[in-house]
């Protein structure tokens, strides 16, 4: 009997991890405050109670050491899930991620596996300032050898996490803080979702059309899926029918779904909370342009974070952050319509 049970993204993540830990004794978790605290963003709630300190390990503030250790453990037969508390902290430990986790399969000609999941919190919009609000999708998607996933809702969150844990390659699991369903941070309606109780996987490299439409293609991921859907609602009232694609995974990237959609609509808007230049929005547009630029009836548009450090003060932060209004304006531009007053 199918259940109607709804989970928040954070509970879906914890459930996925718990199920895999029950199924496979090689899976363990480590990171800062992931034990008794249950993770600052609630991704590991309940796990210490069930599995104990040996398999659910609080670490010192030593990212280089414990992420490096994650790589080593993964190469020695374990399946570690390591949490990097805020993606912004990658600066102190990037070598372990991009030079070791990402490259050791290649350097060994496929003889070593690196089945490590590195989960990390992204995103802002709640005044946490420049070193605690970044999204950085492109920074990691750009590194060959790293799979990168970013769920927009609890159903995808659980399936993608189980797939990530079972993957023999390193997976960077980027979860947006504002989607977690934390009691102390607002989250959009659609983030929590009905989540099946059993284990299920979602394959990587399969984008999802979360709203079919015929007039314009909006491609996005993570929190911005919700802003795009809000924009689509606004546009529907004006008779504009937007198709919204949730990429779900950046590496591997499902270019096919994007191309098929743009072939149908002829108009493209890409939305990303990460900094604009040199990022996801550019990659999607380039993929379309180099396949067949004549598909486009209008210049494509990007709605992304401006190339500035994230400001603290609310009016400035809200000015910079992509939102539904900006997405709708971008759509209207592709249709050569005036912006809303």
């Amino acid at each position: 009997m199918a259940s109607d049970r709804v989970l928040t993204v954070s509970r879906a993540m914890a459930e996925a991890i718990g199920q895999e830990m029950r199924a496979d004794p090689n899976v363990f978790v480590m990171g800062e405050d992931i034990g008794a605290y249950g993770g600052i963003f609630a991704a590991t709630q309940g796990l210490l109670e069930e599995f104990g300190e040996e398999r659910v390990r609080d670490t010192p503030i030593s990212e280089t050491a414990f992420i490096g250790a994650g790589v080593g453990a993964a190469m020695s037969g374990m399946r570690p899930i390591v949490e990097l508390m805020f993606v912004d902290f990658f600066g102190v430990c990037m070598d372990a991620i991009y030079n070791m986790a990402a490259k050791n399969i290649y350097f060994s000609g496929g003889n070593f596996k690196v089945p490590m999941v590195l989960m990390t919190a992204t995103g802002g919009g709640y005044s946490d300032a420049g070193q605690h609000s970044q999204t950085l999708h492109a920074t990691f998607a750009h590194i060959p050898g790293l799979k990168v996933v970013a769920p927009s809702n609890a159903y995808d969150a659980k399936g993608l996490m189980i797939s990530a844990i079972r993957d023999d390659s390193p997976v960077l699991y980027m979860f947006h803080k504002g989607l977690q369903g934390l009691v102390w941070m607002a989250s959009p309606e659609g983030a929590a979702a009905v989540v099946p109780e059993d284990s299920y996987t979602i394959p990587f490299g399969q984008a999802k059309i979360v709203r079919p439409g015929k007039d314009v293609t909006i491609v996005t991921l993570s929190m911005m899926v919700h802003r795009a859907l809000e924009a689509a609602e606004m546009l529907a009232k004006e008779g504009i029918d937007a198709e919204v694609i949730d990429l779900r995974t950046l590496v591997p990237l499902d270019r096919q779904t994007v191309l098929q959609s743009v072939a149908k609509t002829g108009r493209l808007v890409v939305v990303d909370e990460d900094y604009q230049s040199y990022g996801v929005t550019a990659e999607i547009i380039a993929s379309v342009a180099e396949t067949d630029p004549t598909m486009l009836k209008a210049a494509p548009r990007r709605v992304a974070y401006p190339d500035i450090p994230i400001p603290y003060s609310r009016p400035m932060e809200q000015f910079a952050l992509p939102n539904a209004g900006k997405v709708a304006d971008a759509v209207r531009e592709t249709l050569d319509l005036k912006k809303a007053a």
Partner: protein
Amino acid sequence: MPDGLWDTAEIPEGVVANWFYADGGEVPKGATVAEITVEKTSYDIEAPEGGRLKIVVPKDGVVLPGTVIGKIGDG
């Protein structure tokens, strides 16, 4: 017979942080049906019985000890 769920929290007011079943949804006995926060701490509320859920206090609603936040039962 409708079954009441009520707050087991401490003295100050709390907030319904999350519902894990939709209004009208079928809830198994013992399932975590809601989450309440009181003074920065969260509490999971379990369904004392199985049945159809009627939400009385929606998400973000303020509650006091003894507030009925939902009912489970027939009809």
